[in-house]
Structure formats: structure tokens, C-alpha cells
């Protein structure tokens, strides 16, 4: 089939369980122009170079007229370039990480372990569980709620908004897509109002959560209301719609590789490397559809014209045999694993350290219990989005004696 239909085929729901042959096809050509005028980039070294190329913008307003896409009134920092990106991401980081809050995420280890233990306890005695609904989804949701200061009981409310927003992240165009985009915009607006409302309740009465920190920040470090809304929406969605995939993909991959599961059970010290390998092998964010060249770019002997949508296919770069030996092999002991799972450059995943800790603790707690587990369905049913790709459910059978 022609490489100019790759995007369509990746987007096709039938490709969700195994998009990797399509990525291999992409790597054959390196860069592939699509029928809609966008360009896919699939080689590791090309993607890695573009992450550090200042001529590639993250701001869709730099697109040529025929590719114009609606932008929210107040974009979040992942949709912006420096210096505005730097300012907003810096303000968002103040209560989350270094240099102002270096111990914030590390200090959550105990809490994350506690939440994990509770979830595990709730599975006692059950022989069939859904890894997604019973474990991999509730864990990051509870964590991000505690971190941001969002009531956990409101989950049904914000989950509907989040789903609407995620569902708009597909790669099609046309009336159907425009309708999804409009719905996502409405959801984003309502979610923003909700989060700003929560923050406002803490003005002058700060808790130890991030919304409190944002609303009570002294003037030069303060986000405007619109900025706070855009930032908080981004963090709430990204904080719980991606880690679920990392944990679920982890369980799925380990159950498909019993030898590696066994290795990790015997040597838990390998877990940090195993999580990095998962981020390479089954990255929760498969591709970044957001970039636009500010000038014609030469990539893999192809000229990508100024102003067109450029899609960086991270999951393809992660399987590039030019960079990774035996790339389709899942190897938790893989050395020199500079994967693209969290992106790179100035837009590297903001929540990466939290996702790493959550995945390590979650998988660390599950692995000893997976010894007798079997997949009920393989492949499992997947979620809609080809961008934030992961199983919608992952039912597994546990032997009763192991609980």
C-alpha cells in the first residue's frame, strides 16, 4: 500500500492492537507525505534531531492557511513556543519540581504506595480483574487528584470532559472531526472553569496542593485565570490519561513475556530499567501531531515545506533498528536506552517523573501477583485514540490461591 495513506491506516481503529508494522513501513521511507498534506517522520535520529531544531514550532498558529486548525483562546504550554512556553511551563513547575519544589514528587512515594496497597487489597479473593478499571486507572487518578487538589469524588464529572478531549485527538479531518473538536473545546472550557473554581476556594487558605500554590503565588509568579485554567486542564488530563496506558501496557507486555516477568520477580532492582523499556516498547503517547516547520526543512532527503503539519511518530523511532538492537524485543535489561517515550527537548513530558514513580510502584506491587495470571483476551479491546494509545480493558484471570 502507498505510504501516503499511512496516517489514515494508523488512525484506523483496526490498527490499534498492533500499529508497529505500519511504523516499520514508515521507517522504510523515513519521511512520508500524506494525502492530506501532512508529513510523518518515523526514524529515531530524525525525530531526535527535530526535537532540538528551533525551526520546528509547537504553535499551530504557524500553520499555512490550508492547514489552519482552531486554537483555544489561551493555549496550554505544550501548544506554545519559547519564550511564552518557557514562562508558562516555568510557572507550572514551581510547585511541582526543581528548582523551587525539588522534593515534591519524591515525597509522594509513600502516598502512592499507600493508594496502590489499598487497590491491591480491594482485589483480594477475586479471580478475574480488569487491570484498567480496577487498578491502572484509579491509581493515577487518585494521585493526580491529591497532587492538584481535586476532589476524588468528582471523577465522574471530569472524566467525561477528559474523554471528550482525548477523543478529539485523532488524526482525521472532516465534519466528524470538526464536531469532535468543538465538543472538546466546550469540555476544555467547562473543565477550566471547574478547576479555577476549585483554586478560588483556596485563595488565602492554601492547602499543600498545586491549585492552592497556583492561586496563591505572588504576583510575578502568578498565572492569570485563563493561564491557570489551561494549565490545570492539561495537568489533570495528562496526569491520568497517560499513566493508565503505561501501567496497563506494562501488565500486558509482561504477561506476553513470562520469562521477563519471571526475571523481574526475581530481581526487582531491574524495575526502573523495565519501565524505561516499556516506554520504548509500548509508549503511552505514540505520536506528536502538533508540530509545524517555520521554514522548509530537509529531513531524510525530503523537503518538508514551511507551514505543514508534521507528525513525530515516537513509537516508530523507538523501534528503529538503526538505533536499537533487536528493537522488537522487549528487554528490561537493555543498555543505553535513550527512548523517545517522553519526547525530548524543551517540550519533554512535564509529568515524566511522576509517571515513572507511579509505574514503578504499581508494577512492583503487581508483579509478585501475576505469576499465575493469564490474559482473558489477547489482544484486549483498545481505546479510540491512536495518539494516547492503550487498552480500554485488560481482563486477566488470577488463580484463587494467589488472590
Amino acid at each position, binding site marked *: 500500500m502507498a505510504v501516503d495513506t499511512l496516517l489514515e491506516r494508523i488512525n484506523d481503529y483496526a490498527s490499534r492492537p498492533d500499529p508497529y508494522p505500519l511504523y516499520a513501513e514508515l521507517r522504510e521511507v523515513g519521511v512520508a507525505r500524506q494525502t492530506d498534506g501532512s508529513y510523518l517522520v518515523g526514524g529515531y535520529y530524525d525525530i531526535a534531531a527535530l526535537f532540538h531544531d528551533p525551526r520546528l514550532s509547537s504553535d499551530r498558529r504557524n500553520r499555512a492557511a490550508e492547514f489552519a486548525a482552531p486554537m483555544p483562546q489561551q493555549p496550554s504550554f505544550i501548544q506554545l513556543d519559547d519564550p511564552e512556553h518557557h514562562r508558562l511551563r516555568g510557572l507550572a513547575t514551581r510547585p511541582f*519540581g*526543581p*528548582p523551587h519544589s*525539588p522534593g515534591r514528587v519524591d515525597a509522594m512515594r509513600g502516598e502512592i504506595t499507600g493508594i496502590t496497597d489499598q487497590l491491591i487489597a480491594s482485589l483480594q479473593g477475586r479471580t478475574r480483574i480488569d487491570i484498567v478499571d480496577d487498578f491502572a486507572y484509579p491509581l493515577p487518578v487518585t494521585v493526580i487528584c491529591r497532587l492538584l487538589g481535586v476532589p476524588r469524588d468528582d471523577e465522574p464529572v471530569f472524566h467525561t470532559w477528559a474523554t471528550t478531549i482525548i477523543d478529539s485527538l485523532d488524526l482525521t479531518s472532516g465534519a466528524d472531526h470538526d464536531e469532535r473538536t468543538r465538543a472538546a473545546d466546550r469540555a476544555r472550557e467547562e473543565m477550566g472553569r471547574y478547576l479555577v473554581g476549585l483554586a478560588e476556594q483556596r485563595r488565602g487558605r492554601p492547602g499543600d496542593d498545586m491549585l492552592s500554590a497556583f492561586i496563591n503565588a505572588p504576583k510575578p509568579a502568578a498565572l492569570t485565570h485563563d493561564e491557570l485554567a489551561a494549565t490545570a486542564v492539561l495537568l489533570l488530563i495528562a496526569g491520568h490519561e497517560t499513566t493508565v496506558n503505561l501501567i496497563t501496557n506494562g501488565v500486558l507486555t509482561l504477561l506476553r513475556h513470562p520469562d521477563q516477568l519471571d526475571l523481574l520477580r526475581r530481581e526487582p*532492582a531491574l524495575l526502573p*530499567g523495565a519501565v524505561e523499556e516499556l516506554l520504548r516498547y509500548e509508549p503511552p503517547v505514540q505520536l506528536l501531531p502538533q508540530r509545524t516547520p517555520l521554514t522548509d526543512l530537509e529531513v531524510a532527503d525530503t523537503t518538508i515545506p514551511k507551514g505543514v503539519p508534521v507528525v513525530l511518530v515516537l513509537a516508530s523511532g523507538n523501534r528503529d533498528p538503526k538505533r536499537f538492537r533487536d528493537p522488537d524485543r522487549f528487554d528490561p535489561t537493555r543498555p*543505553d536506552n535513550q527512548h523517545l517515550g517522553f519526547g525530548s527537548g524543551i517540550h519533554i513530558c512535564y509529568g*515524566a517523573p511522576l509517571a*515513572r514513580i507511579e509505574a*514503578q510502584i504499581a508494577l512492583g506491587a503487581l508483579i509478585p501477583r501475576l505469576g499465575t495470571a493469564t490474559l482473558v483476551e489477547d489482544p484486549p479491546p483498545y481505546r479510540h485514540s491512536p495518539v494516547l494509545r492503550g487498552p480500554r480493558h485488560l481482563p486477566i484471570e488470577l488463580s484463587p490461591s494467589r488472590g
Partner: protein
Amino acid sequence: MRIVVDLTRCQAYAQCVFLAPEMFELHGEEALLYRPDVPDEQLERVRQAAAACPVQAILVGEAVSACAG
């Protein structure tokens, strides 16, 4: 155990600071400082930091054990 960070490679992603804040520190927005000697109770965090480094710049290992002479 000792660590050395190849600051030629380091691009200040600060994953090490998040994961082992008592060992790694950002000085300003980008300048990384670290404790070169690893106390036992920090070793697990340091290994996590080394695994997470996006540019694989952190080396954890034993120093040369050699007597003078």
C-alpha cells in the same frame, strides 16, 4: 558507591532531581549539582535517577580501590 554525571551530555531535564532530590540539585534553572558519594540509603533512588536520565549521563559505580605506592 560513587556517581559522576557527564555534564557534557546533560541538558537539564532534571529527572534525577525529581527522583533523588537529596543527591541532585538544580542551581538556577539549569545548572546541575550533585553529591558524588552515594550513601547506602540513597542508592536505590540514584539507580532510578540513572535509569531515567533522558541522555543517559549518570554513571554509578565503585571507585578504583587502589593503595598508594
